[in-house]
């Protein structure tokens, strides 16, 4: 491990970290924006959900590298070629998270809201959605961590990320770069994870002081809905 290499290459290390951050954050955010209305639709019209879920499982099984390469023909060699598949993967995680979150709202709460005069749409947006936030954010955490990690595979088609250090270290037989790449990717992912936990605390003041468990690992990372 050549420690001196790190300060010598600080500029490119920082640049690739920013590149990776972009590729890791934009897809889950776009995924979130799309999955909230889609998830709401799946709850309002329950028959939509099973086919959506099956489609999600199928897409989630696709190898990321294959998707990247296939897209080169359509979107060229830029960030978009990596962002689109990662967004699809995020959708596969977040739509079930939104649906699970909304469904985890106790029936009693829904009925009380209706009794207080909430119309179905207002109830959904002002009562159920906020209560679904912990589950949705749990899904968002998984989407963000996965995207940050998967972005490194994009380097195989020249889309810059911290994966550059993995590949260059491999080609030059230079473990220092590889250790650095792996460490930074994990660190970046964990930092974002912690930030999201703080965001959840910010958005759900009524849960402060209570433990929120991540639950078991599922095929599609839907959370167990435990609060």
């Amino acid at each position: 491990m050549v420690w001196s290499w790190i300060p010598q290459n600080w500029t490119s290390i920082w640049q690739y970290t920013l590149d990776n951050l972009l590729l890791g954050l934009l897809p889950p955010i776009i995924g979130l924006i799309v999955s909230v209305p889609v998830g709401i639709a799946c709850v309002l019209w329950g028959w939509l959900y099973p086919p959506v879920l099956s489609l999600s499982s199928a897409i989630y099984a696709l190898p990321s590298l294959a998707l990247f390469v296939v897209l080169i023909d359509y979107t060229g060699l830029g960030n978009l070629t990596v962002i689109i598949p990662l967004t699809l993967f995020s959708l596969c995680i977040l739509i079930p998270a939104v649906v699970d979150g909304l469904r985890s709202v106790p029936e009693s709460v829904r009925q009380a809201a209706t009794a207080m005069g909430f119309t179905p749409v207002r109830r959904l947006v002002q009562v159920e959605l906020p209560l679904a936030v912990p589950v949705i954010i749990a899904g968002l955490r998984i989407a963000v961590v996965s995207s940050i990690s998967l972005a490194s595979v994009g380097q195989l088609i020249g889309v810059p990320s911290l994966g550059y250090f993995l590949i260059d270290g491999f080609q030059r037989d230079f473990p220092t770069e590889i250790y650095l790449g792996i460490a930074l990717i994990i660190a970046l992912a964990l930092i974002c994870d912690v930030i999201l936990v703080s965001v959840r605390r910010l958005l759900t003041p009524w849960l402060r002081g209570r433990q929120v468990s991540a639950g078991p690992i599922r095929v599609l990372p839907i959370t167990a809905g435990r609060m």
Partner: protein
Amino acid sequence: MGFLNFAWDWLKSPAQWHGPDGIPVRVLQHLGYTALSVLIAAAIALPVGLLIGHYGRGGFTAVNIANIWRAIPTLGLLILLVVLIGFSAFTWLIPLVALGIPPILVNTYEGVSGVDPDLKDAARGMGMTQWQVLWKVELPLAVPLILLGLQVTAIFVVATATIAAYIGLGGLGRYIIDGLASNNYGEVAGGAAVIVVLALAVQVLFVGLRRLVVPAGLRQQARASK
């Protein structure tokens, strides 16, 4: 879609189905890597998960393992192993097993520790020893989650073995890496198609396993609580 046509043309060609680079050989290679990795990962993770779940220790670690697991770049781990120990069976086995352990471990722990404490009390009240409580009460109730963990690991290993072609491994990932190098979209798309079919087949396999192994009563319960 253009690439579906590419994939179909490539898959149709009889040349793809024969020889050492043919689809049947690659599928078998891929399945071999997957089966071996899942077996070894399960052999390690199941006992550990059962123990820590039963004694209720290390729960905090289990949750953290799940978080860190998704953050680890699989490409990085594969490359690191090559640079450290060169090319051998262990080069791909170690990362695949290491990355296959967390889902089984976490889910086994969650499954066992999530068993209703009243049931455990009742069992002890009936005179069961610790071992008997584990084998006769906790394990059967934890089976759905354990199977789920095995399923996640299996699918994950299928996907990661694809990337391992970059460091020279055989299997279905070869079609993607080689196709990528020669801009042969047919090969990439066709290879990707076969991998998807394989991944879906693995999912179906586990759904079938669940029918076989999980008692009907538990399945009902799981469906109701979803």
